Protein backbone atom coordinates (compact mmCIF):
# COMPACT_ATOMS: atom_id res chain seq x y z
CA UNK A 1 0.00 0.00 0.00
CA UNK A 2 1.33 3.39 -0.88
CA UNK A 3 1.85 5.82 1.88
CA UNK A 4 3.69 8.49 -0.05
CA UNK A 5 0.87 10.79 -1.01
CA UNK A 6 3.03 13.15 -3.01
CA UNK A 7 4.13 10.28 -5.18
CA UNK A 8 0.59 9.06 -5.44
CA UNK A 9 -0.73 12.40 -6.64
CA UNK A 10 2.08 13.36 -9.01
CA UNK A 11 2.03 9.87 -10.39
CA UNK A 12 -1.69 10.01 -11.00
CA UNK A 13 -1.58 13.42 -12.63
CA UNK A 14 1.55 13.32 -14.74
CA UNK A 15 3.47 10.09 -14.87
CA UNK A 16 0.69 7.57 -15.15
CA UNK A 17 -1.76 9.95 -16.68
CA UNK A 18 -5.00 8.12 -17.21
CA UNK A 19 -5.53 9.15 -20.76
CA UNK A 20 -2.07 9.50 -22.12
CA UNK A 21 -0.23 6.63 -20.59
CA UNK A 22 -2.85 4.27 -19.22
CA UNK A 23 -5.28 4.59 -22.09
CA UNK A 24 -8.33 5.05 -19.93
CA UNK A 25 -11.17 7.40 -20.74
CA UNK A 26 -10.12 7.94 -24.32
CA UNK A 27 -13.67 8.27 -25.60
CA UNK A 28 -14.60 11.41 -23.68
CA UNK A 29 -11.06 12.65 -24.16
CA UNK A 30 -11.59 12.56 -27.89
CA UNK A 31 -15.26 13.39 -27.81
CA UNK A 32 -15.52 16.36 -25.49
CA UNK A 33 -12.36 18.20 -26.40
CA UNK A 34 -13.48 20.30 -29.30
CA UNK A 35 -13.97 23.41 -27.23
CA UNK A 36 -12.15 24.67 -24.24
CA UNK A 37 -15.23 25.53 -22.22
CA UNK A 38 -16.86 22.15 -22.66
CA UNK A 39 -13.56 20.54 -21.80
CA UNK A 40 -13.48 22.55 -18.61
CA UNK A 41 -16.98 21.40 -17.70
CA UNK A 42 -16.23 17.80 -18.47
CA UNK A 43 -12.97 17.95 -16.57
CA UNK A 44 -14.72 19.29 -13.51
CA UNK A 45 -17.41 16.66 -13.72
CA UNK A 46 -14.89 13.85 -14.05
CA UNK A 47 -12.85 15.01 -11.08
CA UNK A 48 -16.00 15.17 -9.03
CA UNK A 49 -17.39 11.81 -10.04
CA UNK A 50 -14.09 10.02 -9.86
CA UNK A 51 -13.53 11.23 -6.35
CA UNK A 52 -16.82 10.07 -4.96
CA UNK A 53 -16.92 6.92 -7.06
CA UNK A 54 -13.44 5.89 -5.97
CA UNK A 55 -14.46 6.44 -2.39
CA UNK A 56 -17.67 4.47 -2.75
CA UNK A 57 -16.09 1.58 -4.60
CA UNK A 58 -13.22 1.43 -2.15
CA UNK A 59 -15.77 1.17 0.64
CA UNK A 60 -17.59 -1.60 -1.20
CA UNK A 61 -14.32 -3.37 -1.84
CA UNK A 62 -13.18 -3.07 1.74
CA UNK A 63 -16.41 -3.84 3.53
CA UNK A 64 -18.41 -5.97 1.13
CA UNK A 65 -16.61 -7.92 -1.51
CA UNK A 66 -13.55 -8.91 0.48
CA UNK A 67 -14.89 -9.29 3.96
CA UNK A 68 -18.60 -9.61 4.19
CA UNK A 69 -19.95 -11.54 7.10
CA UNK A 70 -23.62 -12.31 7.27
CA UNK A 71 -25.12 -14.40 10.01
CA UNK A 72 -21.67 -15.48 10.84
CA UNK A 73 -21.00 -16.85 7.40
CA UNK A 74 -18.10 -15.29 5.57
CA UNK A 75 -17.72 -15.45 1.87
CA UNK A 76 -15.29 -14.22 -0.72
CA UNK A 77 -17.41 -12.21 -3.05
CA UNK A 78 -14.59 -11.25 -5.43
CA UNK A 79 -16.70 -12.37 -8.34
CA UNK A 80 -19.26 -9.70 -7.55
CA UNK A 81 -16.73 -6.91 -7.75
CA UNK A 82 -17.41 -5.87 -11.32
CA UNK A 83 -21.16 -5.95 -10.92
CA UNK A 84 -21.23 -4.05 -7.67
CA UNK A 85 -18.72 -1.44 -8.76
CA UNK A 86 -20.51 -0.53 -11.92
CA UNK A 87 -23.90 -0.64 -10.29
CA UNK A 88 -22.77 1.69 -7.57
CA UNK A 89 -21.09 4.02 -10.03
CA UNK A 90 -24.13 4.18 -12.28
CA UNK A 91 -26.49 4.77 -9.39
CA UNK A 92 -24.17 7.34 -7.89
CA UNK A 93 -23.94 9.29 -11.09
CA UNK A 94 -27.67 9.30 -11.48
CA UNK A 95 -28.23 10.41 -7.94
CA UNK A 96 -25.60 13.12 -8.16
CA UNK A 97 -27.28 14.30 -11.30
CA UNK A 98 -30.74 14.62 -9.83
CA UNK A 99 -29.42 16.17 -6.67
CA UNK A 100 -27.42 18.71 -8.60
CA UNK A 101 -30.40 19.46 -10.73
CA UNK A 102 -32.48 20.09 -7.69
CA UNK A 103 -30.13 21.94 -5.44
CA UNK A 104 -27.60 23.64 -7.64
CA UNK A 105 -29.03 24.42 -11.02
CA UNK A 106 -26.00 26.48 -12.09
CA UNK A 107 -23.66 23.63 -11.30
CA UNK A 108 -26.02 21.25 -13.00
CA UNK A 109 -26.01 23.44 -16.03
CA UNK A 110 -22.24 23.43 -16.06
CA UNK A 111 -21.70 19.74 -15.41
CA UNK A 112 -25.05 18.10 -15.98
CA UNK A 113 -24.77 17.15 -19.61
CA UNK A 114 -21.45 15.44 -19.00
CA UNK A 115 -22.51 13.33 -16.06
CA UNK A 116 -24.21 10.48 -17.94
CA UNK A 117 -21.30 10.35 -20.31
CA UNK A 118 -19.09 9.53 -17.40
CA UNK A 119 -20.91 6.31 -16.60
CA UNK A 120 -19.68 4.78 -19.79
CA UNK A 121 -16.18 6.02 -19.30
CA UNK A 122 -13.32 3.72 -18.57
CA UNK A 123 -11.64 6.18 -16.28
CA UNK A 124 -14.04 5.90 -13.36
CA UNK A 125 -14.37 2.15 -13.43
CA UNK A 126 -10.67 1.90 -14.19
CA UNK A 127 -9.72 3.85 -11.10
CA UNK A 128 -11.96 1.64 -8.98
CA UNK A 129 -10.49 -1.51 -10.46
CA UNK A 130 -6.91 -0.32 -10.07
CA UNK A 131 -7.57 0.59 -6.48
CA UNK A 132 -9.05 -2.81 -5.78
CA UNK A 133 -6.29 -4.55 -7.69
CA UNK A 134 -3.59 -3.27 -5.39
CA UNK A 135 -5.69 -3.33 -2.29
CA UNK A 136 -5.61 0.39 -1.59
CA UNK A 137 -7.16 1.77 1.56
CA UNK A 138 -10.24 3.94 1.35
CA UNK A 139 -8.45 7.23 1.85
CA UNK A 140 -5.60 6.70 -0.60
CA UNK A 141 -8.08 5.25 -3.04
CA UNK A 142 -10.19 8.36 -2.86
CA UNK A 143 -7.13 10.51 -3.30
CA UNK A 144 -6.03 8.41 -6.23
CA UNK A 145 -9.41 8.73 -7.84
CA UNK A 146 -9.41 12.45 -7.39
CA UNK A 147 -5.97 13.05 -8.79
CA UNK A 148 -6.48 10.65 -11.62
CA UNK A 149 -9.46 12.80 -12.43
CA UNK A 150 -7.27 15.87 -12.22
CA UNK A 151 -4.83 14.21 -14.59
CA UNK A 152 -7.67 13.47 -16.94
CA UNK A 153 -8.91 17.04 -16.71
CA UNK A 154 -5.43 18.39 -17.33
CA UNK A 155 -4.94 16.27 -20.41
CA UNK A 156 -8.40 17.19 -21.63
CA UNK A 157 -7.77 20.89 -21.12
CA UNK A 158 -4.44 20.88 -22.92
CA UNK A 159 -5.89 18.80 -25.70
CA UNK A 160 -8.89 21.01 -26.20
CA UNK A 161 -6.62 24.04 -26.44
CA UNK A 162 -4.64 22.26 -29.11
CA UNK A 163 -7.74 21.24 -30.98
CA UNK A 164 -9.05 24.76 -31.01
CA UNK A 165 -5.81 25.73 -32.64
CA UNK A 166 -5.96 22.82 -35.06
CA UNK A 167 -9.38 23.97 -36.09
CA UNK A 168 -7.74 27.02 -37.64
CA UNK A 169 -5.06 25.07 -39.44
CA UNK A 170 -5.16 23.89 -42.98
CA UNK A 171 -5.10 20.21 -42.17
CA UNK A 172 -4.75 18.04 -45.26
CA UNK A 173 -8.13 16.63 -46.13
CA UNK A 174 -7.65 12.97 -45.16
CA UNK A 175 -6.27 13.97 -41.79
CA UNK A 176 -9.14 16.19 -40.83
CA UNK A 177 -11.32 15.34 -37.90
CA UNK A 178 -10.41 12.44 -35.69
CA UNK A 179 -7.24 11.48 -37.47
CA UNK A 180 -5.34 14.63 -36.63
CA UNK A 181 -6.79 14.62 -33.13
CA UNK A 182 -5.33 11.18 -32.55
CA UNK A 183 -1.95 12.17 -33.93
CA UNK A 184 -1.91 15.22 -31.71
CA UNK A 185 -2.82 13.07 -28.74
CA UNK A 186 0.08 10.82 -29.64
CA UNK A 187 2.56 13.66 -29.60
CA UNK A 188 1.04 14.93 -26.37
CA UNK A 189 1.48 11.54 -24.81
CA UNK A 190 5.08 11.63 -26.01
CA UNK A 191 5.56 14.85 -24.10
CA UNK A 192 4.09 13.28 -20.97
CA UNK A 193 6.54 10.39 -21.28
CA UNK A 194 9.22 12.79 -20.17
CA UNK A 195 7.86 12.62 -16.66
CA UNK A 196 8.46 8.91 -16.38
CA UNK A 197 10.46 8.01 -13.37
CA UNK A 198 9.83 11.11 -11.30
CA UNK A 199 7.91 8.88 -8.95
Amino acid at each position, binding site marked *: METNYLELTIGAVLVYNFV*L*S*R*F*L*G*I*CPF*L*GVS*KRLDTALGMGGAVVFVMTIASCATALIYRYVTTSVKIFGYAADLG*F*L*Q*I*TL*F*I*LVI*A*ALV*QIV*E*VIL*QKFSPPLYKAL*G*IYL*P*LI*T*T*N*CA*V*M*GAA*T*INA*GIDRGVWPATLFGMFSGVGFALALLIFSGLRERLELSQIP*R*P*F*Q*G*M*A*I*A*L*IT*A*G*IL*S*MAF*LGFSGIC
Partner: protein
Amino acid sequence: MMKTLWNDFFKGIWRENPTLVLLLGMCPTLALTSKAVNGLGMGAATTAVLVGSNLVISLLKNLIPNKVRIPIYIVVIATFVTIVDLCMQAYAPESLYNALGIFIPLIVVNCIVLGRAEAFAAKNTVIRSAFDGLGMGAGFTLSLTVFGCIREFLSTGGIFGVTLVPGWNFMLPALAPGGFILLGALLAGMNYLNERKAVKAGRLYVPPQGMDCRHCRICSIDEK
Protein backbone atom coordinates in the same frame (compact mmCIF):
# COMPACT_ATOMS: atom_id res chain seq x y z
CA MET B 1 -34.93 -13.04 -43.17
CA MET B 2 -31.54 -14.45 -43.98
CA LYS B 3 -30.73 -11.24 -45.67
CA THR B 4 -31.63 -9.17 -42.64
CA LEU B 5 -29.55 -11.39 -40.42
CA TRP B 6 -26.64 -11.22 -42.81
CA ASN B 7 -27.03 -7.49 -42.89
CA ASP B 8 -27.18 -7.28 -39.10
CA PHE B 9 -24.01 -9.29 -38.95
CA PHE B 10 -22.11 -7.67 -41.74
CA LYS B 11 -22.73 -4.03 -40.99
CA GLY B 12 -20.63 -4.32 -37.85
CA ILE B 13 -17.72 -5.61 -39.81
CA TRP B 14 -17.35 -2.80 -42.27
CA ARG B 15 -20.00 -0.17 -42.70
CA GLU B 16 -20.54 0.50 -39.03
CA ASN B 17 -17.30 -0.90 -37.75
CA PRO B 18 -17.31 0.09 -34.09
CA THR B 19 -13.68 1.11 -33.90
CA LEU B 20 -12.79 2.53 -37.25
CA VAL B 21 -16.07 4.11 -38.25
CA LEU B 22 -17.91 4.79 -35.03
CA LEU B 23 -14.72 5.38 -33.03
CA LEU B 24 -16.12 3.73 -29.93
CA GLY B 25 -14.26 1.65 -27.40
CA MET B 26 -11.07 3.54 -27.99
CA CYS B 27 -9.38 2.52 -24.76
CA PRO B 28 -8.98 -1.19 -25.49
CA THR B 29 -8.33 -0.35 -29.11
CA LEU B 30 -5.31 1.64 -28.13
CA ALA B 31 -4.21 -0.15 -25.00
CA LEU B 32 -4.40 -3.74 -26.09
CA THR B 33 -3.09 -3.73 -29.59
CA SER B 34 0.62 -3.57 -29.03
CA LYS B 35 0.48 -7.27 -29.75
CA ALA B 36 -1.84 -8.99 -32.14
CA VAL B 37 -2.68 -11.76 -29.66
CA ASN B 38 -3.92 -9.27 -27.12
CA GLY B 39 -6.16 -7.65 -29.67
CA LEU B 40 -7.57 -11.00 -30.63
CA GLY B 41 -8.11 -11.99 -27.00
CA MET B 42 -9.81 -8.74 -26.13
CA GLY B 43 -11.94 -8.98 -29.24
CA ALA B 44 -13.04 -12.48 -28.38
CA ALA B 45 -13.88 -11.53 -24.81
CA THR B 46 -15.88 -8.53 -25.92
CA THR B 47 -17.69 -10.53 -28.55
CA ALA B 48 -18.72 -13.08 -25.96
CA VAL B 49 -20.09 -10.37 -23.72
CA LEU B 50 -21.82 -8.62 -26.61
CA VAL B 51 -23.60 -11.72 -27.81
CA GLY B 52 -24.58 -12.74 -24.31
CA SER B 53 -25.88 -9.40 -23.22
CA ASN B 54 -27.68 -8.78 -26.50
CA LEU B 55 -29.39 -12.14 -26.17
CA VAL B 56 -30.52 -11.64 -22.61
CA ILE B 57 -31.60 -8.09 -23.05
CA SER B 58 -33.62 -8.75 -26.16
CA LEU B 59 -35.24 -11.61 -24.26
CA LEU B 60 -36.12 -9.41 -21.34
CA LYS B 61 -36.85 -6.27 -23.28
CA ASN B 62 -40.50 -6.15 -22.36
CA LEU B 63 -39.87 -6.69 -18.70
CA ILE B 64 -37.40 -3.89 -18.30
CA PRO B 65 -38.87 -0.62 -17.12
CA ASN B 66 -37.51 2.40 -18.91
CA LYS B 67 -36.46 4.16 -15.76
CA VAL B 68 -34.05 1.52 -14.59
CA ARG B 69 -33.09 0.04 -17.88
CA ILE B 70 -29.55 1.38 -17.77
CA PRO B 71 -28.79 -0.18 -14.37
CA ILE B 72 -30.36 -3.42 -15.55
CA TYR B 73 -28.35 -3.45 -18.75
CA ILE B 74 -25.30 -2.77 -16.71
CA VAL B 75 -25.97 -5.60 -14.33
CA VAL B 76 -26.59 -8.00 -17.18
CA ILE B 77 -23.45 -6.90 -18.95
CA ALA B 78 -21.45 -7.01 -15.76
CA THR B 79 -22.59 -10.58 -15.21
CA PHE B 80 -21.34 -11.65 -18.59
CA VAL B 81 -18.12 -9.78 -18.10
CA THR B 82 -17.55 -11.52 -14.82
CA ILE B 83 -18.24 -14.87 -16.41
CA VAL B 84 -15.73 -14.13 -19.12
CA ASP B 85 -13.28 -12.95 -16.51
CA LEU B 86 -13.66 -16.11 -14.47
CA CYS B 87 -13.28 -18.28 -17.55
CA MET B 88 -10.15 -16.50 -18.55
CA GLN B 89 -8.69 -16.81 -15.10
CA ALA B 90 -9.36 -20.50 -15.25
CA TYR B 91 -8.53 -21.45 -18.79
CA ALA B 92 -6.75 -18.73 -20.68
CA PRO B 93 -2.97 -18.61 -20.90
CA GLU B 94 -1.62 -16.61 -18.05
CA SER B 95 0.28 -14.19 -20.24
CA LEU B 96 -2.86 -13.24 -22.11
CA TYR B 97 -4.90 -12.74 -18.97
CA ASN B 98 -2.18 -10.56 -17.52
CA ALA B 99 -1.87 -8.54 -20.69
CA LEU B 100 -5.57 -7.77 -20.84
CA GLY B 101 -5.44 -6.79 -17.19
CA ILE B 102 -8.02 -4.32 -16.04
CA PHE B 103 -9.45 -4.04 -19.49
CA ILE B 104 -11.53 -7.16 -18.95
CA PRO B 105 -13.60 -5.53 -16.19
CA LEU B 106 -13.74 -2.43 -18.31
CA ILE B 107 -15.72 -4.20 -21.01
CA VAL B 108 -18.60 -3.29 -18.75
CA VAL B 109 -18.31 0.35 -19.64
CA ASN B 110 -17.41 -0.16 -23.27
CA CYS B 111 -19.79 2.07 -25.19
CA ILE B 112 -20.15 -0.59 -27.86
CA VAL B 113 -21.68 -3.13 -25.51
CA LEU B 114 -24.01 -0.77 -23.74
CA GLY B 115 -24.75 0.98 -26.98
CA ARG B 116 -25.83 -2.20 -28.74
CA ALA B 117 -28.01 -3.12 -25.81
CA GLU B 118 -29.69 0.23 -25.91
CA ALA B 119 -29.85 0.81 -29.62
CA PHE B 120 -30.45 -2.67 -30.94
CA ALA B 121 -31.19 -5.43 -28.48
CA ALA B 122 -33.84 -3.45 -26.69
CA LYS B 123 -35.79 -3.06 -29.91
CA ASN B 124 -35.20 -6.22 -31.91
CA THR B 125 -35.76 -9.94 -31.80
CA VAL B 126 -33.50 -12.35 -30.03
CA ILE B 127 -32.03 -13.83 -33.17
CA ARG B 128 -31.35 -10.53 -34.80
CA SER B 129 -29.82 -9.21 -31.62
CA ALA B 130 -27.52 -12.19 -31.45
CA PHE B 131 -26.38 -11.64 -34.99
CA ASP B 132 -25.95 -7.97 -34.35
CA GLY B 133 -23.80 -8.71 -31.33
CA LEU B 134 -21.83 -11.23 -33.28
CA GLY B 135 -21.27 -8.81 -36.13
CA MET B 136 -20.26 -5.93 -33.92
CA GLY B 137 -18.02 -8.23 -31.94
CA ALA B 138 -16.48 -9.58 -35.08
CA GLY B 139 -15.90 -6.09 -36.39
CA PHE B 140 -14.32 -5.08 -33.12
CA THR B 141 -12.17 -8.19 -33.03
CA LEU B 142 -11.16 -7.80 -36.62
CA SER B 143 -10.08 -4.21 -36.29
CA LEU B 144 -8.29 -4.85 -33.01
CA THR B 145 -6.45 -7.81 -34.44
CA VAL B 146 -5.52 -6.07 -37.64
CA PHE B 147 -4.39 -3.00 -35.77
CA GLY B 148 -2.51 -5.25 -33.36
CA CYS B 149 -0.79 -6.97 -36.26
CA ILE B 150 0.24 -3.65 -37.70
CA ARG B 151 1.62 -2.38 -34.42
CA GLU B 152 3.31 -5.62 -33.59
CA PHE B 153 4.85 -5.92 -36.99
CA LEU B 154 6.10 -2.35 -37.03
CA SER B 155 7.60 -2.63 -33.58
CA THR B 156 9.03 -6.13 -33.51
CA GLY B 157 9.01 -7.20 -37.11
CA GLY B 158 6.68 -10.10 -36.40
CA ILE B 159 3.05 -11.07 -36.03
CA PHE B 160 1.56 -13.15 -33.22
CA GLY B 161 4.98 -13.48 -31.70
CA VAL B 162 6.46 -14.99 -34.83
CA THR B 163 9.41 -13.00 -36.05
CA LEU B 164 9.27 -12.27 -39.73
CA VAL B 165 12.00 -9.69 -39.97
CA PRO B 166 14.80 -10.75 -37.66
CA GLY B 167 16.57 -7.97 -35.87
CA TRP B 168 13.83 -5.42 -36.33
CA ASN B 169 13.30 -3.46 -33.19
CA PHE B 170 11.49 -0.13 -33.27
CA MET B 171 9.59 0.47 -30.10
CA LEU B 172 7.52 3.50 -31.00
CA PRO B 173 4.43 1.79 -32.49
CA ALA B 174 4.08 -0.43 -29.46
CA LEU B 175 4.09 2.45 -27.00
CA ALA B 176 1.28 4.83 -26.15
CA PRO B 177 2.29 7.66 -28.52
CA GLY B 178 2.80 5.28 -31.36
CA GLY B 179 -0.63 3.78 -30.79
CA PHE B 180 -2.32 7.13 -31.07
CA ILE B 181 -0.32 8.21 -34.08
CA LEU B 182 -0.76 4.95 -35.95
CA LEU B 183 -4.49 4.90 -35.35
CA GLY B 184 -4.63 8.46 -36.62
CA ALA B 185 -2.69 7.48 -39.71
CA LEU B 186 -4.97 4.51 -40.22
CA LEU B 187 -8.03 6.73 -40.03
CA ALA B 188 -6.44 9.15 -42.46
CA GLY B 189 -5.90 6.29 -44.85
CA MET B 190 -9.53 5.23 -44.51
CA ASN B 191 -10.65 8.79 -45.04
CA TYR B 192 -8.58 9.01 -48.16
CA LEU B 193 -10.07 5.84 -49.61
CA ASN B 194 -13.61 6.74 -48.59
CA GLU B 195 -13.27 10.19 -50.01
CA ARG B 196 -12.01 8.86 -53.29
CA LYS B 197 -14.89 6.46 -53.43
CA ALA B 198 -17.34 9.20 -52.56
CA VAL B 199 -15.95 11.57 -55.16
CA LYS B 200 -16.25 8.88 -57.78
CA ALA B 201 -19.83 8.32 -56.78
CA GLY B 202 -20.41 12.06 -56.77
CA ARG B 203 -21.19 12.22 -53.09
CA LEU B 204 -20.06 14.39 -50.26
CA TYR B 205 -17.75 12.87 -47.71
CA VAL B 206 -17.14 14.30 -44.26
CA PRO B 207 -14.31 12.66 -42.30
CA PRO B 208 -15.48 11.50 -38.87
CA GLN B 209 -15.18 14.43 -36.51
CA GLY B 210 -15.53 12.51 -33.31
CA MET B 211 -16.99 9.42 -31.90
CA ASP B 212 -20.21 8.56 -33.54
CA CYS B 213 -22.84 8.25 -30.87
CA ARG B 214 -25.76 7.52 -33.06
CA HIS B 215 -25.60 3.94 -31.91
CA CYS B 216 -25.37 4.62 -28.27
CA ARG B 217 -27.29 7.47 -26.92
CA ILE B 218 -26.90 6.42 -23.35
CA CYS B 219 -25.38 9.72 -22.60
CA SER B 220 -27.89 11.98 -24.20
CA ILE B 221 -31.09 10.05 -23.81
CA ASP B 222 -31.11 10.39 -20.09
CA GLU B 223 -30.97 14.09 -20.36
CA LYS B 224 -33.98 14.93 -18.32
